[in-house]
């Protein structure tokens, strides 16, 4: 009996059980947990989630999803067999069944009508393309960062999410951590006086390029699907060194990487601090380990490598005319004056847990409201990073029109706004 039940999908189980009880008018025992009577969430109220590309980071994210009572993780897709198997084992053990389906091609997962939302934690090469496919398939998505490879992708991401009415949460989990939120609030609400400068730590301002390495024997598709791994990236022969999804084609070839890896966190926080306005309009050439960009309202966004207080990774600093605040992943805040706290207690949460961010996403899946790391916010922050990378690549100042998101009178820069996707992929 129990074996039969575990083979059924939970919704099917409930439906079948109820139907049976009606038909024979006999008491059918349904676990109270299945009806949500023990504090658990009834199956019909659960958000069914699938995972696409679940490696190290994805496994952490998935753990945050699995903590949530209203999540049912149903399927995993990964081009690597080892990852598929590991995630199936992890989730099946969690649920005490064998129901987690595995896929090599995420399109099959997206075809499943029972899946409401997806966790996209592939390498950056796939983030935007997979997210667009998910949106068009009617799924909401939590997408790891960096979410896009260039300016054009950022704009298409924003437009597609609006057009499809889906809920998008970028993996910018610091937007849901109290110390970062408080620091941004101080800046945004004028508590620091007129805001003058926001600082982001790029942690590396050089491009990461993924080469065309020497060909190696292509593994069996079931073990590693190389064609699917390459996905939208231009073709190159198999080489195991390129299987590090974290660094592969991060933001495309010519201007990839650079300030994007950490920038999609730190710059995103700076964007929040300035009120999620469009990206800066001027980006100077790098000088003395820093790159200065300017918003249309004159506030400077400074990508700075050195001179940070010891507040952990991903530090940001906001300076106004009357005060400043600096914070980082330690969870600690340093303020120019304790009066900025105004008697408030800000929870100190070290590290950068994603639990709150995942919860924010799930709440918005239900309410259809906009989560903190929504597509519009992510788009602006990513454009700032991409434009800074273009300035780094060209080694000179570039100017961006905030209305068109095109570089002004700058043919070379504009040609770096987008990059063709390998066939058959499109956004």
């Amino acid at each position, binding site marked *: 009996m129990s074996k039969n039940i575990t083979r059924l999908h939970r919704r099917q189980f409930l439906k079948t059980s109820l139907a049976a009880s009606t038909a024979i008018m006999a008491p059918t025992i349904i676990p109270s947990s299945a009806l949500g009577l023990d504090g658990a969430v009834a199956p019909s109220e659960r958000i069914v989630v699938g995972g696409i590309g679940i490696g190290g980071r994805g496994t952490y994210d998935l753990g945050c999803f699995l903590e949530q009572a209203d999540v049912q993780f149903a399927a995993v897709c990964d081009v690597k067999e080892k990852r598929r198997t590991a995630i199936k084992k992890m989730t099946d053990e969690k649920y005490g069944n064998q129901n987690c389906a595995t896929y090599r091609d995420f399109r099959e997962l997206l075809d499943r009508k029972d899946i409401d939302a997806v966790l996209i934690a592939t390498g950056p090469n796939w983030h935007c393309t997979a997210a667009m496919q998910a949106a068009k398939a*009617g799924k909401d998505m939590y997408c790891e960062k960096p979410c896009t490879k260039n300016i054009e992708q950022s704009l298409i991401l924003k437009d597609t999410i609006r057009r499809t009415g889906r809920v998008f949460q970028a993996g910018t989990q610091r937007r849901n951590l109290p110390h970062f939120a408080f620091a941004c609030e101080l800046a945004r609400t004028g508590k620091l006086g007129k805001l003058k400068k926001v600082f982001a730590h790029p942690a590396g301002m050089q491009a990461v*390029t993924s080469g065309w390495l020497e060909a190696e024997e292509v593994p069996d598709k079931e073990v590693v699907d190389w064609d699917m791994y390459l996905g939208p990236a231009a073709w190159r022969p198999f080489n195991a060194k390129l299987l590090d999804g974290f660094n592969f084609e991060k933001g495309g070839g010519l201007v990839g990487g650079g300030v994007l890896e950490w920038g999609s966190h730190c710059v995103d926080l700076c964007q929040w601090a300035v009120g999620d306005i469009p990206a800066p309009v001027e980006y100077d050439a790098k000088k003395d380990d820093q790159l200065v960009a300017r918003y249309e309202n004159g506030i400077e966004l400074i990508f700075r490598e050195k001179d940070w207080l010891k507040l952990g990774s991903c530090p940001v600093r906001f300076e106004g005319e009357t005060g400043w605040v600096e914070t980082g992943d330690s969870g600690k805040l340093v303020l120019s004056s*304790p009066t900025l706290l105004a008697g408030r207690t800000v929870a100190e949460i070290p590290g950068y847990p994603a639990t709150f961010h995942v919860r924010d996403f799930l709440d918005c899946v239900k309410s259809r409201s906009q989560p903190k790391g929504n597509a519009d916010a992510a788009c602006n922050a990513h454009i700032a990073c991409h434009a800074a990378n273009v300035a780094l690549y*060209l080694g000179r100042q570039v100017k961006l029109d905030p209305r068109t998101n095109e570089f002004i009178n700058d043919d070379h820069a504009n040609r770096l706004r987008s990059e063709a996707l390998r066939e058959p992929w499109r956004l």
Partner: protein
Amino acid sequence: MLINRQLTRCSALLTSLFFVAAGLATAAETAVESAEKEAELIAILQSSAAPGEKAITCKKLTVYGSSKAVPELAKLLADEQLSSWARIPLEAIPGPEADEALRQAAGTLKGNLLIGMLNSIGVRRDAKAVDLLTNRLLDTDAQVASAAAVALGRIGNDASAKTLKQALASSPEGVKSAVAEGCVLCAERLRLEGRDADAVVLYDEVRAAEVPKQRILEATRGAILARHQQGIPLLIEQFRSFDKGLFQIALSTAREFPGSDVDQALATEMARATPDRAVLIVGAMADRPETVVLPAVLKAAGTGAKEVRIAAIKALGRVGNTSCLPSLLDFGIEADADVSLAAKKALFEIPGDNVDKYIVSRLAKAEGKVYPLLLDLVGQRRIEALAALLKAIDNSDAAVRTAALTALGATVPPEKLNVLIKLAVSPKRPEDAEVAQQALRTACVRMPDPEATATELTAALDKASLPTKIALLKILGEVAGTKALHTIGVAAKNSDPQIQDVASELLGNWLTIDCAPVLLDLSKSAPAEKFQIRAMRAYIKVARQFAMSDAERIEMCHKATDACFRTAERKLVIDALRRVPTMETLKMAIKAGQDPELKDDANAVILFIAPTLGGNVDEVRELLATVELSKAKVEIVKAEYGTGSTQKDVADVLRQNFKETALIALPSASYNESFGGDPAPGSEKKLIIQYKLNDVPGEVTLAENALIILPVPKQKK
């Protein structure tokens, strides 16, 4: 071999590309220089360069390419390996030549390569390709036809709209979704151009077509927005749909709908919706803070289904204003705990200085259950209302007094801290003492000047009763700083044992290193031996755990050794020596080991420190010769000396020199001499020993001529 070399060169090119290109692409770059670069790059494409090199050349042409590069790039479009690389510059190079090249290739290629061409044509929005794409819509390959449909959508002109509209009905099942996507893309383009009526036609066509649900949702959203204010009935229609997807698209579309007319419609709809939907509609209403119909939200907050009430109350916390406060205060004292809690949270969050002013004004004549609620809000919102709080402290209702004292703790300014100290030391009612002391703690830890705060607290100690003294000392412990440390240090020598106990415990948990001298002093002069021991243990903890220089740590260990009067603490000092493995601490451990009671502990530390002292092997060896190390059962399992694959079996030599301790002394300080020669002259060698120490297996790798000490293996758990 040649290919390999080319590949290697290409890889190097790729990895260094950033730096090279960045150096070249300067603002001063002239058209001539760009042309020269383009010519060089074209020459590579024309050469027999390896595919990898041609690939990266394509990328460079993204920046430097012109119409001159197009013919060479076009040649690569049929190359399965390089087609995707060639399309990168062809999508970027302006001018009709690139369009023409992509159209030509689309006329001859098949399968994925063809799809790539169609996708690029769509990206470039090549209006001249509409006929070609129209033909490709009929392709038997559904993926090709789908790519053509989306490309037509991206072009988004009248011709493509007409084609897509026709195809919506006639396309095969596998293509319909893409055609619908193309239609919606087309319609979005029309909306951007201000042609809303034309867009509505397209959206409605999609809504009526048999296409996947998601396409219907997209078209529905577009159809509502493109109709402007006339779209409100269509929006409301979706709110009433039984279909969950349509209801959800209504929720998200309502949030982006312009103007304020829709807010009234939402309010009406919320009132008639089922509770589960009304909850979500209230959320959407609150996401339109500029135009939300507040009275409707307020009404929903007051009556009806509980879940709707709570959702509405939460919404008021985000978008409410002073007009909502009387009701929220009423909700905050309701018997239903969920409603009450939601209201309290909303009252805490509701924005605006006027809200604070209103709360203060209500305080003046407050009574009953709302009084403590108002006082709570003063505390939570950090409102300055000192006079009202002091008045409330005299109230006969304990709940009011408790709330007032708590609020005072959250809001009292530094210059009025003495008021709270007085209340804590001499409460008007004895039963308020605990709350007052808790409030004082809250206030003291947020004071900007810890030294000034500690001075005020210290002054109050004399007048305080014993229990209050203890409470004040604990608060001083949290305030910390120089003054607090001194006061607590003095208290630790007080004549009252209870005060001694609390003070020494506070010192034992002190978090800054300046407590060390105070602890050392107490370890000698505390009134009771048990507190001397406590102080010494705390002092040793500081020596072990706190950040300081090696010299300071050693000095603390010396002082602790001198001051310890019990074996137990002396053992702790010996163990602390591990933190600073130096010749001096080795000597300290050896000296300590001369005491039979400390010998085993000292030996363990000696064997820990000695191997780490790489620079003084001879001196260490001489020192160890004076030590009677503990006996150990040692078995040499395997021992090899050498480098890489050149290894010499030296297990027997070790076994012969083993003296039943973990230290193995060889005949000579030189491994080469002891092991019968150099197994790998000129190379850096290692000695690797596998062994069992007291039957527990272990392994150690030693640099040439290092002391041979077998570490105690870690037991597997």
